[in-house]
């Protein structure tokens, strides 16, 4: 129960994390920050396969977090499409069968983010979010090459203590080289364009006439490439937390700063938050500066095991924790309190948030590096370099990625890769106003040449609109009707924001303390509500 909410948020963040974050930068920090946000939903999904006679193409299986029988299978493809006789790899997929299959020749393909997340491991989250679509159509999940069960390219380091490690002293280049040496695959073959070929091969193998696409975060890039290369196979497309083709993933750095500014604004405009934390930005900068000078070391109780241990709070751990918390609306509500406490010397809330985002891996780092180094690193613009100079987060991310890509050489995609998609497939674009990774103007950029498209902005959603609003109903509507005609974003305007935590316990108005006498327990109800004041 406790983690139920975590479970929700996890899935958001997990499928959302536009990984690159620190990720590529330093392995552990990576593990620490970028990767799997939480506890509950993180799945060690190794499906247990039992053959079934029904269909030779798939066998029944169970996936983590779902108790029903599902269908799993795999196809074998050449690692390098140009060498059909060369090394072969397996691409695994899972089907969540439609409850009442009225369109057996269609399916919705849900594509994970990262880059580097497994779609199959996130099956439970997709299933919850796409319940309505699944009423009448199969949901297809494919572990993109290099992720999950499809020839995973991971770079997990051994037992680095994420609490005490000084992540600013790690040697990114050496770690990346070590990882590359440990991988046997031809890592140049794990980019997005090859992966789209695999997706199409799975579609043909399973015999679906048309696919509906849902791509979240980096998955939206995959969806756009699918539109570019196999438009005839698609009925509708939904891009959520959109990464436009024209945009290098590395531009995410400035989006994070934008996300922070939106957070400061939200707290300022909320009377309670503003009263409780009047100088939030100053406090943040104070802690940030303090950590920039030197990390803070403290004896703490391990958040998980309760063992006495050293917690070294570095600048990157602090900003990373805040950054990851911004993905999840309910954890985001705790940020002002956490910053306020940290400024007053209490690092427990930051430790809590950091531990939450640090204790599991969910992103295949090798595949992540291949994508970023082949498709994004050569598209760094002057603006990004300027942002990187001004912002610590953007700067350290850029630095880390450049170093990673030095040690992870991938031939760059040519200019045509970054052209906007020119298509008349009905396409729904969803952006969250509070998104700390892919801001709404990215969605507008992707829409440029989409002739039949709608871009809807959810004012209270972060990254992954469909998980946090009625966005998933809109997807079901689009899939059902095959057109955007009747879709309006009205329901997205519904106020679903979460109130900020005012202390370690509550989001509701704090009672007025009279001097230091005990608060009367039966005081008349606090007169004003957050709603009134906002």
């Amino acid at each position: 129960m406790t983690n139920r909410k975590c479970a929700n948020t996890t899935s958001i963040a997990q499928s959302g994390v536009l990984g690159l974050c620190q990720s590529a930068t330093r392995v552990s920090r990576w593990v620490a920050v970028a990767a799997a946000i939480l506890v509950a939903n993180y799945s060690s999904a190794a499906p247990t396969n039992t053959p079934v006679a029904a269909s030779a193409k798939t066998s029944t299986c169970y996936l983590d977090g779902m108790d029903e029988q599902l269908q799993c299978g795999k196809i074998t493809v050449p690692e390098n499409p140009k060498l059909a006789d060369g090394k072969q790899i397996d691409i695994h997929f899972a089907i969540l069968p439609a409850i009442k299959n009225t369109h057996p020749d269609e399916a919705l393909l849900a594509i994970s983010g990262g880059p580097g997340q497994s779609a199959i491991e996130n099956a439970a989250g997709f299933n919850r979010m796409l319940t309505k679509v699944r009423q009448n159509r199969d949901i297809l999940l494919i572990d993109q090459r290099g992720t999950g069960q499809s020839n995973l390219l991971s770079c997990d380091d051994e037992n680095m203590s994420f609490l005490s490690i000084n992540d600013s002293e790690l040697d990114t280049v050496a770690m990346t080289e070590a990882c590359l040496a440990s991988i046997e695959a031809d890592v140049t073959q794990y980019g997005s364009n090859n992966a789209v070929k695999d997706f199409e091969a799975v579609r043909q193998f399973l015999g679906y006439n048309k696919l509906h696409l849902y791509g979240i975060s980096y998955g939206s890039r995959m969806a756009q490439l699918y539109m570019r290369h196999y438009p005839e196979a698609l009925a509708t497309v939904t891009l959520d937390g959109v990464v436009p083709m024209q945009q290098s993933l590395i531009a995410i750095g400035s989006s994070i700063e934008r996300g922070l500014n939106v957070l400061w604004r939200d707290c300022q405009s909320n009377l309670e938050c503003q009263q409780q934390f009047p100088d939030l930005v100053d406090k943040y900068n104070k802690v940030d500066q303090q950590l920039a000078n030197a990390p803070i070391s403290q004896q703490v109780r391990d958040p998980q095991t309760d063992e006495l241990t050293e917690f070294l709070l570095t600048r990157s751990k602090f900003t990373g924790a805040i950054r990851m918390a911004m993905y999840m609306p309910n954890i985001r509500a705790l940020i002002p309190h956490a910053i306020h406490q940290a400024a007053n010397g209490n690092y427990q809330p930051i430790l809590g948030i950091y531990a939450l985002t640090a204790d599991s891996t969910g992103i295949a780092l090798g595949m992540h590096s291949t994508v970023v180094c082949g498709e994004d690193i050569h598209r760094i613009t002057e603006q990004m370099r300027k942002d990187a100079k001004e912002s610590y987060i953007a700067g350290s991310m850029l630095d880390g990625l450049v170093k990673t890509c030095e040690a992870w050489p991938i031939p760059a995609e040519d200019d045509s890769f970054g052209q906007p998609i020119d298509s008349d497939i009905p396409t729904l674009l969803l952006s969250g106003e509070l998104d700390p990774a892919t801001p709404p103007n990215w969605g507008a950029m992707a829409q440029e040449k989409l002739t039949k498209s709608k871009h809807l902005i959810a004012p209270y959603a972060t990254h992954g609109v469909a998980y946090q609003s009625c966005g998933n109903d809109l997807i079901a509507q689009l899939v059902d009707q095959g057109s955007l005609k009747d879709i309006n974003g009205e329901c997205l305007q519904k106020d679903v924001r979460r109130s900020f935590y005012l202390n370690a316990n509550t989001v509701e108005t704090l009672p007025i303390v009279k001097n230091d006498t005990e608060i009367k327990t039966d005081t008349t109800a606090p007169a004003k509500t957050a709603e009134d004041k906002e």
Partner: protein
Amino acid sequence: MKMILTMVRKELIDAARDKRSVMAGLYYAIGTPLIMCGLFMVLIGQLSSPEDLNINIKNANNAPDLVRYLSNNGINHADDEQANKITLTISDDYATNMAKAKQAEVLLVADNSDEKLQKSIQRLERQLQAYGAEMGSIRLIARGINPSITQPIKINVQDQATADSKGGMILGLAIFTMMYSVFISGMNLAIDTSAGERERNSLALLLSHPMSTRQLVLGKIIAVTCFALLGLVLILLVSKVAYPFVPWQQIGFTVNISQDFMGLMLLIGIPVALMAATLQLYVSFMAKTFKEAQSYLTMVLFVPLALSMAASYNIAPDVLQWLPVSGQQQALMDFIKGREIPMMQLIVSSVATLIIAIALAVGLEKSLKSEKVVFGL
């Protein structure tokens, strides 16, 4: 052989003349699936919680975040008669207690015996618990503790049910109605052609024709069997069309009357129909009057009904798998749930069914040689 066919034709023409009794027999086959589907449609509508659940939230101002959370999950405040059936009152010291990490109280008032509300009440409770759990987790995070420690056990469930078997209960009921239609459809004809024929004094006339009693008995059995099977075919066709209209997917499964199933049901239905026909004719001939035949038959039919019912609700001991009617029903249910058909049991029960039919036919032939039976003395 030719004689038997003539006899069958005569019986069928006779039956067709009495349109009301024909309809009465077939009415069941057509009506039952329709009524069942109608009932299920209403039931599903009532038992599932509406997508947008309106309840009456009192003192909403005391917990705006909670109210927004509920609203985000489709539970909204309204002030009409329907909404007032569930009220949620937020206590006045809610915010004060929250601030101190003391338990903040909300009061949920509703009638849990009202079937239409049960799902909605459960849903509201679930959402309240989820909200509380989320808050509990965040309180732990704010104290530097990983909330996952409060879930020491992670329960992984692997449900063996298949998509087909989830609808098994409903299909069990459907198979039961089909099985029963075999008995019901031919009943009127069976009475009419035996007790009825005798009352119209045409039985003696028939017997005076140059034909054997066996031919006469077989002719009547075949005519009644045809009717029983006609009923079965009808109910299968109507079911095939009607069941998909029920929104089963709302309760998480589908009910699909496949062609394979229809074929198997028809095949298994033939011996059952033969037995039903001979049984009904035998009992009707044993009765002295038309009226008496109706009463006896109703009583006798209780036996296959009970067998079939027991099998469909799975309250049956294993021995029922080997008995006529219940054995076949069990096999059909296994087939539809995607399990292996228990061939041995199916063969034994089908053969037993045929043996009973033959024994009754022989008995019928013998008894029709007695004047007592022919004239109903």
